[in-house]
């Protein structure tokens, strides 16, 4: 059974802005333990879709079902939110406490988790994001990537089954982005965490199990990274940019060289070396 199911979901943003930012007729099944990347440019509706997944927004039409619970079921909304943890763009705006361990404890406290259990969860969550030594520190002196890892740990302390990173890498420098990506991949691999990463950087999608490209509120294409990256026209139309190595490979193909479609830089190097 899929952990999240969207059946014919539509949502219209009631805002006066030019961008509609809504989503239309989304059908989606997300399997447990998968690493899913949701791609789209600004205003493509990707954040709206994310907010539909944990009940921040309730669809106008269609159903969102998380772990068998309907997001329209307002009585069980916190069961959903505890299961679908969401990390946002700006790490500074997600922390409520000035001491890191207190911040991590905030979520479990809200859920009424007993004290000893909170202790264990804080230990585990800090370990999971590799930030153990900062436990008693304050967030002020941390780098962007470290702050975002703390924000992830704060969500992990609620023991979610699904981790949504809503453009959590968008504000970070390349080093911070790499840190957050590495953390997300490790959680997916070692803890069987279902990860939904929302971004407009295509290079973050190369290791995903599944890539979903959103354009104008609709799913433009969906599949494995190789399946998606091949569709250059659709990618272009969705306002996205392929990773450099894929672009190079495609140009080489166009020039008549027998190069396969590659995603990683290393793959490209290998393919080019084999050319002669």
């Amino acid at each position: 059974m899929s952990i999240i199911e969207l059946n014919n979901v539509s949502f219209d943003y009631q805002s006066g802005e030019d961008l509609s930012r809504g989503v239309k007729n989304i059908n989606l099944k997300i399997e447990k333990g998968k690493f899913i990347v949701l791609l789209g440019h600004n205003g493509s509706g990707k954040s709206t879709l994310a907010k539909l997944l944990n009940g921040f927004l309730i669809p106008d039409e269609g159903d969102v079902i998380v772990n068998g619970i309907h997001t329209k079921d307002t009585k069980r909304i916190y069961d959903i939110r505890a299961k679908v943890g969401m990390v946002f763009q700006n790490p500074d705006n997600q922390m409520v406490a000035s001491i890191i361990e207190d911040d991590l404890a905030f979520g479990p406290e809200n859920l009424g988790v007993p004290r000893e259990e909170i202790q264990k969860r804080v230990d585990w969550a800090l370990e999971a994001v590799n930030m153990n030594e900062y436990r008693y520190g304050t967030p002020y002196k941390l780098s962007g990537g470290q702050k975002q890892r703390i924000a992830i740990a704060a969500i992990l302390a609620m023991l979610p089954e699904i981790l949504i990173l809503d453009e959590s890498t968008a504000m970070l420098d390349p080093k911070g982005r790499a840190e957050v990506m590495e953390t997300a991949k490790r959680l997916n691999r070692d803890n069987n965490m279902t990860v939904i990463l929302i971004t407009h950087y295509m290079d973050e999608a190369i290791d995903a199990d599944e890539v979903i490209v959103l354009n104008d509120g609709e799913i433009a294409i969906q599949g494995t990274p190789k399946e998606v990256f091949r569709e250059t026209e659709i990618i272009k139309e969705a306002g996205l940019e392929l990773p450099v190595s894929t672009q190079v490979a495609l140009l080489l193909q166009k020039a008549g060289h027998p190069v396969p479609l590659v995603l990683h830089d290393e793959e490209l190097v290998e393919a080019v070396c084999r050319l002669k």
Partner: protein
Amino acid sequence: MNRDITFGQYYPADSFVHKMDPRVKLILVVAFIVAVFLVKSLFSYIAITIFVIVGILGSHVPIKSILKSVRGIIFVVLLTAILNVFFYSGGERVLVHWWKITITVESLLFALRMALRLIFLVLGTTLLTLTTTPMNLTDGMESLMAPLKLIRFPIHDVAIIMSIALRFIPILMEEVNKIMLAQKARGADFESGGLMKRARALLPVLIPLFVSAFRRADELALALDARCYNATPHRTKYKVLKLGWRDAAGAFYSALLIFAVVAINASFWGLFGFSLSV
């Protein structure tokens, strides 16, 4: 631009004072403030000074960080001292008499006493905020305000508001600096001109600051929801406040101080107080 945000900032250390219960510390600070207002004689000032010094030594906070907070109010202290010197009426031993202004030994001593009082007040409260994390402080206040629950006062919400406010002070300070630099790069001038002109120059700083603060508040509200704030009325506490022997010792020590101050003030020792000691 005043970038010094040390005032009220936690200084991490593992000391006697740090380990005390925030509730006890809060009550002791209130008691200390009362004691400071009770002091009259030289000996009670000495008692207070000893109390403060022992408190600072017991907190392992470097004297520099504590004096920083005094530096912040030095202007207020000097101003009140000067006003007190001029406006103190009475006193017999005249030092200077010029036009309508009379400075007496008594007025000088009075001004000195007032200045010391202010400095003691700041030292005491700074010691509290330097040795207590904001989270502990709000926890302490929440616990002390617990009786208000009876009249359905939302104590927990207030505690969260306080903790978030404290958390965002340095972030917003940083933002002010950033905006000021951005406006300076566009030719804004914050340093010259009179008070009105300078106040007006700050307007292009305040507006973006407010806009950004509201945007942050929006995101924070989402983040609070994402972390299931108010999910259950049976919220648990990660850090439970516990009274220990340190709290008893601290309370005893402070009670001793207040007793000493009152006793010295009342007894004949008071006669040899400040005014006669010169």
